[in-house]
């Protein structure tokens, strides 16, 4: 996908700083944030929550055939991260040998380039993850 500027701009809070939400009624964390808690619905009370950025690899794959705009990164590790607060998100694991990734490894968020339209186009930034010590 080729994201437009407004789409990226209106979500910089989530993308740059991993700010999602937490339901004060049931304690569930959501990333990205939600306006409605699916568990509590009308009884839910959602407030902003800044995630620590720490978590563990829940599942991963090595993407070798990339969508348009991501060819530059191939092969890259795509993972579902189980954040320490409980929410799961999809992100890339960087600065690591794809052959040495394992489910359960500790990771932490880093701020990286996500996507580039073309040399003169828009550059998208956001969160990726690296293995934690």
């Amino acid at each position, binding site marked *: *996908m080729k*994201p437009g500027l407004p*789409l990226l701009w209106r*979500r910089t809070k989530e993308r740059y700083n991993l700010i999602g939400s937490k339901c004060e009624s049931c304690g569930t964390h959501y990333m*990205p944030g939600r306006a409605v808690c699916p568990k509590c619905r009308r009884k839910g009370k959602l407030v902003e929550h800044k995630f620590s950025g720490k978590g563990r690899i*829940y*599942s*991963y*794959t*090595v*993407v*070798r*055939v*990339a*969508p*348009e705009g*991501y060819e530059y*990164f191939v092969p*890259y590790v*795509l*993972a*579902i991260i189980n954040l320490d607060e409980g929410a*799961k*998100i*999809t*992100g*890339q694991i960087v600065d690591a040998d*794809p052959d040495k990734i394992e*489910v359960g490894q500790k990771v932490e968020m880093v701020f990286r380039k*996500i*996507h580039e339209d073309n040399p003169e186009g828009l550059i*998208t930034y*956001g969160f990726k993850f690296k293995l934690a010590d």
Partner: protein
Amino acid sequence: MKKVAVVGVGMSKFGELWDYNLRDLVVQAGVEAIRDANLEGSEIQALYGGTMASGRLIGQEHISALIADAMGLNPIPATRVEGACASGSLAFRNAYFAIASGAYDTVVVGGVEKMTDASTAEAVTALGGAGDQEWELLQGATFPGLYALMARRHMLEYGTTEEMLAAASVKNHANAVHNKYAQFRREITIDDVLNSKKVADPLKVLDCSPITDGAAAVILMDLDKAKQHTDNYVEIVASAQASDTLALHDRESLTEIRATKIAASEAYKQAGIGPEKIGVAEVHDCFTIAEVMAVEDLGFFKKGEGGKATLDGETKIGGKIAVNTSGGLKACGHPVGATGVKQIVEVAWQLRGQAEGRQIDGVEYGLTHNVGGSGATAVVHILKRR
């Protein structure tokens, strides 16, 4: 609710069909279905069309009106239904409701996708629309990647192996040899799959369904009217659908499609039978891991045993339950909007004893299972022999 029957089915060839445009394909399928139903055309009162991404793939929206026009069915109401790769089943289900409600007695469903006019990269990007663009695709996810994430967990939690996954593809290719409409009519081996190019580990090219052009059509009729009209009908005894989170990461489990389990449970309840009564099933094998999870989630095998059952041949023709006799999405092809309708066509042929070299003997109940995206939509239908 009124009872509903399928009285006519048809499909175009599935494949890379550079000689035909979307109109040609849907007319080929539609004409065959109307002829098969022994109708003239003027009896049809409404049309439901299933297409996922025609706007992205060929720049054409408003597909339902296009189909009605091309088929010479104006001025009947024509409605497009979209649910990613489950669009065809959703169109079928809406047509079913249109008759069950008593609004109409004869309705046509057309599913179509013209995919190969676009480049592979454009098609892959268009299909990505079935996932969560902002929180999966923008992060670099691809559809093979999302199913690979499920495969990894299934392997970890249940000991499923790459050979077990490959066995689904090998079996579907073997079935497609007997289907003259199929895209790939040639056998492959487990080694062929294991040695094919890696796409998103652990999935290889031969674990993935292809990009396909094709169309399928069925005619539905009020059951009482169908009984007067023909001896060649099959009854729809269940129609069920469920949804789940759009993004895969928001699900508690990655080793099941929860929407499939919920839709299947509802479908078995409607039909008044259990999974052991199903003799043939067309399931959504967009990737091999999807078929392994489907045969578990539909209740044919226990959770975690789908891979072994597939490798042991229990889902072959002549096995415990024949799965994807058409060749499935993998070998018959996957023109996304057409797939759900094609599944109905294949099961109807099986129940009518017209499945040629891949016919299952004495099959009474058949099931179709169609998934949208990584499982945010699942649709299950059960059909019964006359």
